[in-house]
């Protein structure tokens, strides 16, 4: 009895989340995960991993809400359990503040996080340059722990992991379904010209007295206390492929963050990091069929999450699982036996 062979390309948070969803839901499939880079060298590893998201222009709101809700509920379940420290998933409360009152005061995710409300005048006093703010409790998911945790879960579900750079889908011989979670790599792998880097630089500082996140609504200045350090940032440089740390940028980050939280200037810097968010107008979560060496092979895409990979990984993974099921449904009988 030949089981269906599924291959997932990419070992970031989207790749592993998708691989786990498929392996756990479809035990009759044999699932492999191939990637050039694994934790701690993926884009996901440097991300602070705070669950909140932007609104994508072309995806129906209901679908985006479902992505966020499914991801949040999955992570909340982990945060509230014994698995929390091992998986690197924790509850975090704080404030998102705006210099100008935004048009959308209650974003699509506001009903899914915990305790969402507008900040009081008393709370805004600490931020004299900001006129409006939102207070809520959300999840922080640290991929340096979460990815190895997912890896274990994937292997436990029968998955197979292989370190290998995939340069073209043509190299993927012997698979019945291909799942593409290659993030920024999709620019080359599937020649998607709509994918572009959004360069982000962050510092990890030692400030164990900080318990709340503070984020400027423009997404360019933020302070995210984590388990062992505080991530401060950031930058959003579109089309910028530079992976080296820019010292001038670091200095500006520290200045902007210290303006919001003065004690940051007393925090010692532990490390600096640059990551390239896989930018795209909308995440690509859809399927197609490609010609691979004379065979028509279904491909499910799940990439282009920009700066919201951690936030949306599980929700989009579930969608991708649904698309894989559709592929299986349409397969000729002999391949499914």
């Amino acid at each position, binding site marked *: 009895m030949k089981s269906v062979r599924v291959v997932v390309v990419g070992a970031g948070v989207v790749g592993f989340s998708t691989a786990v969803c498929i392996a756990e839901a479809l035990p009759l499939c044999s699932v492999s995960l191939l990637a050039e880079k694994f934790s701690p060298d993926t884009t996901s590893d440097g991300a602070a991993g705070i669950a909140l998201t932007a609104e994508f222009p072309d995806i129906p709101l209901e679908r985006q809400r479902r992505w966020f809700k499914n991801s949040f509920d999955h992570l909340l379940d982990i945060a*509230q359990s014994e698995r929390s420290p091992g998986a690197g998933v*924790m509850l975090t409360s704080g404030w998102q503040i705006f210099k100008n009152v935004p048009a959308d005061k209650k974003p699509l995710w506001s009903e899914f996080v915990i*305790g969402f409300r507008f900040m009081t005048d008393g709370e805004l006093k*600490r931020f004299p340059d900001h006129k409006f703010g939102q207070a809520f409790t959300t999840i922080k998911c640290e991929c340096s722990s979460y990815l190895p945790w997912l890896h274990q879960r994937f292997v436990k579900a029968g998955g197979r992991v292989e370190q290998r750079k995939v340069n073209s889908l043509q190299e993927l011989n012997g698979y019945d379904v291909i799942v593409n979670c290659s993030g920024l790599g999709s620019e080359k792998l599937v020649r998607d010209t709509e994918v572009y880097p959004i360069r982000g630089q962050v510092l990890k500082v030692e400030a*164990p*007295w900080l*318990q*709340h996140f503070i984020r400027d609504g423009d997404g360019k200045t933020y302070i995210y206390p984590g388990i062992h350090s505080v991530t401060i940032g950031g930058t959003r440089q579109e089309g910028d492929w530079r992976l080296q740390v820019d010292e001038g940028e670091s200095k500006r980050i520290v200045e902007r963050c210290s303006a919001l939280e003065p*004690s940051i200037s007393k925090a010692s810097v532990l490390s600096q990091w640059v990551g390239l968010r896989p930018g795209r107008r909308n995440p690509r979560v859809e399927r197609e069929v490609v010609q691979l060496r004379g065979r028509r092979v279904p491909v499910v895409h799940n990439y282009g999450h920009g700066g919201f990979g951690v936030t949306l990984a599980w929700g989009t993974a579930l969608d991708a699982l649904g698309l894989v099921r559709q592929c299986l449904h349409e397969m000729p009988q002999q391949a499914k036996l």
Partner: protein
Amino acid sequence: MRVAVIGAGVIGLSTAQSIYEQYHSIISPLTIEVYADRFTPLTTSDGAAGFWQPYLYDKGKVQETKWNKETFDYLLSCLSSPESVQMGIFLQSGYNLCTEPATEPSFKDIVLGFRQLTERELQLFPGYNHGWFNTALMVEGKTYLPWLMDWLQKRGVNFHHRKIESFQELVETGADVIINCTGMRSGELQPDPELKPGRGQIIKVDAPWLKHWILTHNFTNGVYNSPYIIPGSRLVTVGGIFQLGDWSENPNYTDHKRIWEAACKLEPSLKHARIVEDWAGLRPVRSKVRLERETIQSGATNVEVIHNYGHGGFGLTIHRGCAQEAARLFGQIVEQKRTGPKARL
């Protein structure tokens, strides 16, 4: 004028600070000496989690609520100062959980962002069906006390490591005013049947993924006899013991087990926390804080004493308000001495 402060916990040190702040430029010379047999990190203030929160209800003691608010506002203003980290002050949010509907606490308008818990939040805490969320302050004794001592030392305050056995002893050193901040052991200087130990025991653990304090309230068991988990800057304080009348300062295994089981039920992830140490301390419990003047006859002379003790489990919470009030009482004494015996006829 010579001022002798007895006690080097948060009350003694902050009272010395308030007196210095308000009078050092008015009275010359102003000599302040602090006497204590225990200094940081061995005081009651050092063992406490350092969480600003009064008891849920002040039961009519509006003066204490006023002092609590004054302390909160003061600490909040210190947050933006460059010394906030060295003072051990930072913001932290969290949950107060009850097993039955309850009236809103006396501090609801003092803290930041006070609100009821949502249904979703209550689901995170099975067994609790009512509660509140707010942002409050932490002021960690092990950091705050050294900062206060340093502040005082820089300004010429001297410290004496010695146990004072009587007010008379200090009169003999030439003290004009004695500030009695002896907390739990005030009864040794002057019997006070209203002062009793409220023994507490805690466990300090390493669990840096926890960023919220969680306090539970059981109105049958009474205050602090229900589990609480309070993350600090380095370690998390886990507790829930309040034994009135128990003088033991040694942690015991029965209480450790009780605290630990209850806390792990409340927060399952604690199972993975590394236990660092156990500690027990005596809260100086009193029907109300004793903050008042007393003129004590000592041989041929009278000495002015300002009592500032009996702050129960809320010493750090109320310290600044009380220190400022004690300084105000000191001001009355100064005024009286200035106007001299003529005014007393």
